């Protein structure tokens, strides 16, 4: 799942569950996901 898709889905889910206070936290988690996925230690089937 791409981070953008994940974030869109997660934000909608938080809204549906009545947890709007999750929104800024989900955006912070998305940033952490980007840093993690950009790291050079990740394995990649195409490399």
């Amino acid at each position, binding site marked *: *799942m791409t981070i953008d898709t*994940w974030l869109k889905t*997660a934000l909608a*889910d*938080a809204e549906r*569950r009545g*947890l709007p*206070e*999750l929104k800024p*936290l*989900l955006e912070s*988690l998305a940033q*952490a*996901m980007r*840093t*993690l*996925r950009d*790291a050079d*230690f*990740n*394995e990649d089937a195409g490399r």
Partner: protein
Amino acid sequence: MFTIEEFGRKLRAREISAAEMTDECLRRIADGNARINAFIHVMTDEARRQAHEADRELAGGRDRGALHGVPVSIKDIFDIRGTATTAASRVRDNHVAGHDATVITHLRHAGAVLIGKTNLHEFAFGTTSEDSAFGPARNPIDPTRSPGGSSGGSAASIVAGMALASLGSDTGGSIRIPSAACGTVGLKPTYDELPIEGVVPLSRTLDHVGPITRSVPDAWHMQQALLGREAGRPLVATPISSLRLAVPRAYFCDLLDDEVRATFESSLEALRKGGARIDDAGIQHAKTIAPIYMHISFGDAAAYHATTLETMPDRYTPPVRVRLELARYVLAEDYVRALAGREVLRREVDAALSGHDALVLPSLPIPAPVIGANFVQIGSAKEAVRPLMLRLTQLFNLTGHPAISLPCGTTSAGLPCGLQLVGGRMHTESLLRIAFAVEQVLSS
């Protein structure tokens, strides 16, 4: 208030009894707990019974060692048979522990007096100890401020003289952060060195247990007891002139309160004057530490709390519930990436330690924050309190290296600052010898 060693000398010289020491701690709890809320449950009758037994044993010639008759407070995340383990949460209402945690059994065998259960950040899932079903724990030095967390009540109980030592747990810094915020010594041993059976988990692969004390030798005595060993020999300091230390400056010294930075640098200067060699070191993937920590701790916490988040969400404090709900959005593929990154970080810390006895860095980038503050100002930057408080400690939960925080001075407002030393894995005793040498330099 005495250190464990000072009390031990007086106890064996018959200048004080365990019962008298315990009564003094109980008196201080009665007088001061309303102010700092360090204790959730005071075990008055049981503590007095244990103290009288310790006195009877000593009079009969049985000396269990350094912890004999020593009042010890216990973070309310450890099972003590017959008492509730609340983890500072209403989720645990009606819980009664059927058995002692293994480390509690070891403390009993060492002759410790269990004086009560201390307040914490709910389920150890926070760094300030303010989100607790029992109200916030407060810093004895300034009750408008946090004692740090999650073992905040434990560190506060030592500073307030309500116990001579405390048992805490540390998943991202929860022993070292309150030690820095309150001015105590806090030891996180090597991962898996002390048993975690009977401890409410936050993340089984990051959770450590360890002591909070008034001195490094006291941490040694507690560590020996927690290991279930006879504490027969004193701690000997490594000669300061033989120490080779390394400071990981990039990332770890990038974001520090001005007074914390000044205190840290003057501590390094004192160590240099004492003859220690201090080099610089680097952790190449330092910027991935927080994302890796977040994914592993969140994934583990989400698994443990999934059922109760569905069945009793309103029993959590709102901030802890929201962050646990956030944890449930971690994806498996990112959790696996974090596990791979953790191995990289472990090798990088090993490499930084190569040729050195220990890493040295601050324990906490800021002095104890004001209770209720979500952000603090560092220079021109406004920083979120929680990630900032974890910034310098969480790496060593990921890598499992032993780490200790000890006091290294105060700010102009009298708030303590902590110095952190990190040793080689499975070399906790060596780290304590180094820390004892550093403590002697910094306190002279």
